[in-house]
Every structure is written in C-alpha cells, then in structure tokens.
C-alpha cells in the first residue's frame, strides 16, 4: 500500500444515511474553532460583497500631497489605516482586496474541483487501464511542488489575475482527483451499490445519484482548505509580481510587494494587508478543520 492510498483510506467515509449532515451540523455548532472560522469567513465575504459601500475612498485614487513629507503617513482620522507610497487609502485598498481574494479563491477552487471530480470519479468508478493511466498522470503532477507548478503555469500564460486563478486551479486538480477516486473506490463495493446494480440501475445513474453524494464529504473538507491555500498562493504569486499587472489593482499580495522597501519607515504598509490575508485564511482553515472533525465517522455519536 502506498502512502497516498493510506491517506485515501484515512478519508474514507462509510456510507451514512441522511443523519450524517444534520449530525455534522450539530457538532459543528458546538465547536468553538469552527464558529470563530465561520465568523471570520462571514466578515470576509460581507466585506468583499459590500466593498463599494464600506470603503471610505476610491482604492485607486492617488493623493501625492499626502506623501510630500516622505513615505508614508500612518493611521489618522481621515485615513484609518494610513496611505501607501502613492497616497492611496490603505483601508479602502484592503477592503477592495477582499473582493479579489474571494474571487481568486472561488474560481481557482471551482476549476480544480470540477476537473478533479470528473477525472477522479471516472478513474475510481471504471478502474482498469483508464484508472492506471489517469493516476500516473496525477502522480506526475503531484511530483512538482504546487507553488512551483503555479509559477510555471503563470510563466507560460503570462502574469495576470485570470492566469493566477487558472494556475492555482490546475494545481488543485490532482489533489481533488486523488481524493475523489479514493472515496469512490471505497463506495463502489458498498452494499447499496451492489443492490442498485442488481436491480438493473444504469451505471451512470449509480455513479451520479448513489456514489457521488456519499463520496463528496471529504471533498467538501478539502475544498474549504483549498480556498485557504488558494488565497495564500495567490498572494505569493502577487508578491513575486506575477499577479495583476496593473499596479493600481488592490490585490493583497501585490500590496505587500513594494512594502519591503518601506519596512523601516512604514511597517504598517506590510502589516495591514498581511493581517487581512492571515485572518481570511485562518477562517477557512478553522471551518475546514471543524468540518473534518464533524464529518469523521470515527467521531460520530461522540460529543
């Protein structure tokens, strides 16, 4: 048994009835970490959606008069989090940055998830040479460290916001593929699948209405955690200058790039966007961990 198969065995979830989700929700509500995570994510999503209402200034508007005495004036009544090296309001840029991070997270995870679900389900359900071929491909992709592969893909497509989302999405594909294959494999031999087959249900119907719903919970956990990673990786790519090429774009990673130069005089320029990244990522990680525990059949019935 290889390491990966051990892992997939860990995430195996026994076929559970309708009680799984209500039970999970009940346990989730008793998990303080998950609640903190939910609050953080709720704030993050609200800020992203209501950015135009919340932001006190235009995130792209420059006021060079503000930095006439050097970079950069810190927090003040008019600019709660200070202004950056071009006199742009830091708070407004962070608020608008939430939009981009949310967008990057959702799009890239959707790309990874949809491709991963299709490939993983096919691989796990049909088995045989299709499975071997697809899994060797996944092995190759997993051999390259994710962030490095994302850099390679962005280098290929050219830097930019859209390219970053695609790159991170593709990096997620092998992870979701392997995960889904593992849980489909675990489901395939279940009695209810055998029963459905015995009464002559079509293979496609079995896959879609019996196997997938039962195999999906580890994928949801991984999806939540992948959102966190996507935000971090996008910030990393932005930091390396591979993100949005328009320097006025308020992307959190981009905002951190130039701050290295002003670390002596204006450390807050690095701290505020950094804290924004940490809090949103922490939120998704907390929810993901909570979900993992709540959906773990070994822990069901306890607590």
């Amino acid at each position, binding site marked *: *048994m*290889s*390491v990966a*198969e051990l892992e997939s065995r860990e995430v195996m979830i026994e076929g559970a009835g309708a009680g799984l989700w209500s039970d999970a929700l009940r346990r989730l509500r008793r998990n303080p*970490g998950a609640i903190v995570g939910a609050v953080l994510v709720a704030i993050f999503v609200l800020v992203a959606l209501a950015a135009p209402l919340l932001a006190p200034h235009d995130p792209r508007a420059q006021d060079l008069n503000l930095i006439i005495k050097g970079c950069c004036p810190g927090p003040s009544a008019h600019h709660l989090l200070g202004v950056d090296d071009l006199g742009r309001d830091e708070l407004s840029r962070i608020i608008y940055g939430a939009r981009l991070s949310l967008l990057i997270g959702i799009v890239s995870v959707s790309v990874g998830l949809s491709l991963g679900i299709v490939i993983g389900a096919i691989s796990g359900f049909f088995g045989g040479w299709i499975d071997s071929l697809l899994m*060797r*491909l996944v*092995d*190759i*992709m997993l*051999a*390259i*460290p*994710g*962030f*490095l592969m994302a*850099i*390679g893909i962005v*280098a*290929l497509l*050219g830097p930019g916001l859209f390219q970053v989302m695609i790159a991170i999405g593709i990096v997620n594909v092998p992870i979701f593929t392997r995960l889904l294959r593992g849980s489909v494999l675990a489901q395939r031999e279940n009695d209810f699948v055998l029963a459905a087959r015995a009464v002559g249900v079509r293979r496609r119907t079995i896959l879609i209405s019996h196997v997938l719903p039962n195999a999906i919970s580890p994928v949801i956990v991984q999806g939540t955690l992948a959102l*966190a990673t996507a935000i*971090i990786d996008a*910030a*990393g790519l932005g*930091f*390396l*200058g*591979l993100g949005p090429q328009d320097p006025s774009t308020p992307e959190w*990673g981009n905002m*951190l790039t130039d*701050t*290295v130069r002003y*670390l*002596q005089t204006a*450390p807050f320029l*690095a*701290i505020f966007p*950094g804290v924004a*990244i*940490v809090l949103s*990522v*922490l939120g998704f*990680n*907390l929810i993901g*961990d909570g979900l993992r525990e709540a959906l773990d059949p070994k822990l069901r019935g306890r607590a």
Partner: protein
Amino acid sequence: MLRFVVRRLLLLVPILLGLSILVFVWIRALPGSPAQALLGERATPQTIHQINHQYGLDKPIYVQYWRYLKETSQLKLGTSITTRQPVLTEIGQRFPATVELSIAAALFSILIGIPLGFFAAKRHRTVFDHVSLGISLFGISIPIFFLALILKYVFAVRLGWLPTVGQISVLINIPHPTNFYILDALLAGNMGALWDVVQHLILPAVALGSIPLAVITRITRAAVLDVQNEDYIRTARAKGLAPRIVDLRHVLRNALLPVSTIVGLQVGLLLSGAILTETVFAYPGIGSWLRQAISDRNYPVIQGGILFVAIIVVFVNLLVDISYGLINPRIRLGGK
C-alpha cells in the same frame, strides 16, 4: 525488501518520463519562438528558417522530444539568457545555499514540532494543548513571505539582533570549496565566519520552517492520541513499565511512523517556499535565482530550475517511501 526497492525504483521511470514530457510541452508552448528570441529584431524569414534548421526545430515533434530527452539526461540544461552561464553551473553555485537553508528549516520544524505535538497530546484538552493547536493553525494560515517580512522587521530592523539580508557578511572572506557556507567556514577553521553564517541562517530558516512546523505538530499530536489508546500501550502500562519508558519506547516510536512520512513530504514545500523566503532575505539560493529569472523571463533558467527541483522532490519522496517500508513491515509485505 529488495523486490520492494526495485519496484519503487521502476515506478520512477514513468514519473521522470512524464515529467520530461510535461516540461518539454511547457517549453514548446512558451510565447515567442526560440529563433525569434535569438535573432531579436534582425529576424527575417530566411534567418529564422536557418536557425530552426540549425537547432533541429524543423524536425518532427518526437525527434525534437528525443533530442531534448537526450540533452537533459546528459544534464545539458541550456544557458542562462542574462549571465550566459550554463544553467547547471548556476544551479551548482546556488543549490548548496538552499540545501543549507532547507536543512536548517527542517531541523527547526522537527526539533520543535515533534515535542510540541507530543506534549500537546499528553496534555490533551488542557491550555497547553489548545495553545499549541492555535500556534500550528496560525502557522499554516500565515503566508510565508509575510512571516518573513515580520521577522525581518522585528528582529533585524527594529531590534538589530540579526542581519537583514544575505548569506554572509561582506567583510568576511573565506574560501568556498564546497559552496556550503557552514562547511566552508568549518573547513577554514574560522569560528567567526561560522557564527556569522549561522546568524544569517536563523530568520530565513524560521520563516521557511513555519509551515512544516505547524504540520508536524498537528500530525504528531494526532498520532500520539491515536497510539495512546492502543491495547499494547495498556498492556505495557499494566505490566508495570515506567510511564517514561512506555512513552519513549511504545508511544513515541509508533506515533513517529506517520510523522516520518509527513516530514518527507515537506521537502517539496520547503523548496518551493524557498522562492519566497529567499526573496525577502535576499538569500543567494536557488529560490531567489528562480525569482530573478521569472522577472527577467529567463526561460532556460526557469525551465532548468523547475525540472531540477521537481527531480529532487521525486527522489526525496522515493527515499521516504523506501525508508517507510524499512521501518514499517506492513507496507513492505503488503503487496500493493
């Protein structure tokens, strides 16, 4: 055991071949043709044709791939566009620094992560447990370059305890026979230089080690919690073994099985994280080299660097797999 190792080694062949195809396709898909890049503005249809012929670019695609494979397996990785040096030579100059940094980061994360996870599990559901879980959660939630910036600001800029950038102070001059600076300092018998190199290593290593630290702490904690409930632990306790002996010989030894796998899997993370860490600290390893290549669009370097790192990761994972088989007979004998 030999069969197990041979089987693992054979699995390498398709992975390395696949990797080479991936990188080859990647090179082919890059914007701009090589002839255009070489000729620049002097390109005419005739000269382009000539260059294409000269480099075999007019041959069928499988001939080109075969040629690429042959050159790559002979370690001909091309020439850097900016320095005109062979990519392999530059890797040789840069990689030792990254190895030193990665080893330091790995040591930091293992030496702190395993005890932290172990004691968190022993004190399950106490304040210590919650705090260590909190730290590790924070560790995986903070972007590595942001942590690097904060560390640099606090310990280098503000407090001035440690140097801000580089691998060694400019004033120190020691010969570099190996390019591993710690080794070089030891060979030179220069303790001042050694201390200087170590000081330069601390902040980048802590930043780079933060994610592995968090992961190792979590896995160790979970593994110890699992093992503690096993029958053989109860038996060991029941027959009157001292708690310390039970912890060391039975709990920790068994709990370290999953931990050892995870430690191996962190190598890829360390090498890709090095790109960000080395950038923040201007540390002259393979990471900052790749980062520079990215902004220069120095494709031979990007291609050679990514291929090199991926191959290193594949081999380290192979070693981890084999050593895992060595310490866990269930894997070795388990067939598939």
